[in-house]
């Protein structure tokens, strides 16, 4: 995690929403901003173009309250999804505690999703981070659209899993969010882990808080 401030007794956790352009990252933050009790959130800052495309980032601080003497805050950021904003996208990952990858479910956006996922891995590596070792969740957004790809197809392309080498993590872990699916299991003799995933319609808010709850709980676990 980034920092525990024992002087002001504050813990700030940085959550970054990553993903292809127009996937719905900013829409996720807007929904959180509109629905969380105003006393529990700060101002939302959006550095955007005139056409509301994210230029640098969106920022929304959310206050969890005081827990065991510490004020706990989540700092929610989005990155600009458009390919040519990579330099600023990479800067925002600095000090990240948890990543939400917002994929655009539309079949036509499959390549853009894959490219953005590869770009996430590259940028994390360049910071010296490993996305498979920090809290990480995938959100399949725009499930309302008729051209949304089926979930198994998206899972195969974007969440194929990574090998689990740490023996202490090599045990069957059911996916708490989907019946008879697994986050960790053996496949062809290999231990494989996948990121938890969520279906969403960010425009109506469906799935937005499920995603945020899951990632923030996983981030809090890393503090213990």
């Amino acid at each position: 995690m980034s920092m525990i401030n024992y002087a002001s007794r504050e813990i700030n956790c940085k959550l970054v929403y990553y993903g292809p352009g127009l996937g719905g990252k900013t829409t996720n933050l807007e929904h959180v901003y509109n629905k969380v009790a105003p006393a529990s959130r700060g101002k939302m800052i959006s550095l955007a173009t005139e056409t509301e495309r994210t230029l640098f980032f969106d920022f929304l601080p959310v206050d969890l309250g005081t827990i065991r003497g510490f004020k706990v805050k989540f700092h929610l950021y989005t990155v600009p999804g458009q390919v040519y904003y990579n330099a600023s996208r990479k800067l925002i990952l600095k000090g990240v505690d948890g990543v939400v990858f917002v994929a655009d479910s539309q079949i036509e956006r499959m390549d853009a999703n894959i490219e953005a996922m590869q770009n996430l891995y590259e940028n994390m590596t360049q910071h010296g981070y490993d996305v498979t070792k920090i809290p990480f969740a995938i959100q399949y957004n725009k499930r309302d659209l008729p051209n949304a790809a089926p979930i198994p197809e998206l899972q195969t392309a974007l969440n194929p899993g990574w090998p689990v080498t740490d023996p202490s993590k090599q045990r069957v872990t059911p996916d708490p969010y989907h019946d008879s699916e697994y986050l960790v299991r053996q496949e062809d003799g290999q231990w494989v882990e996948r990121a938890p995933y969520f279906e969403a319609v960010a425009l109506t808010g469906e799935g937005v808080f499920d995603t945020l709850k899951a990632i923030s709980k996983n981030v809090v676990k890393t503090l213990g």
Partner: protein
Amino acid sequence: MSGASSWSFREDDSRRIQSILSAFLGESNARTALIVDRTGQMVSTAGETPAFDATAFASLTAADFSANDQLARMLGENEFGALFHQGERESMYLADIARRVILVVLFDNRTTLGLVKLRVKTAVVQLNQVFTDMFNRDGTSAPGVESEFLGEAEDEIDKLFGS
């Protein structure tokens, strides 16, 4: 460490930093000095309490500084050690500390950029020392959170984000 590198900030660190910042404010006639971490979090403030939203200010400062860092590299510079933004009444001066945090000085026409730059040098040297010490001891002496913390935090997350 697989994710972001962690560091902790203790009360004795805070006292050392406060005394450096107060001395600097006294000598330079600047209004406010802030320490912001490069990930966008406010670490410490001294002097007049700013009227603006400090959390938002910290995230913008970090973004501003890191964007300029990249610009410096494109020009073949290792870094711009400092930045200056001039307003009609209010100005700000930003300086790198130990490559991990940023010192932000807010000042108005009660002083001059020249005086701020002159006095900030000592403060930067001292702060570099404090933060380098702090990062070196990383994780060795920091008391963790209590064991009940996790369960209570999860309850609060359910309450805040709906269960």
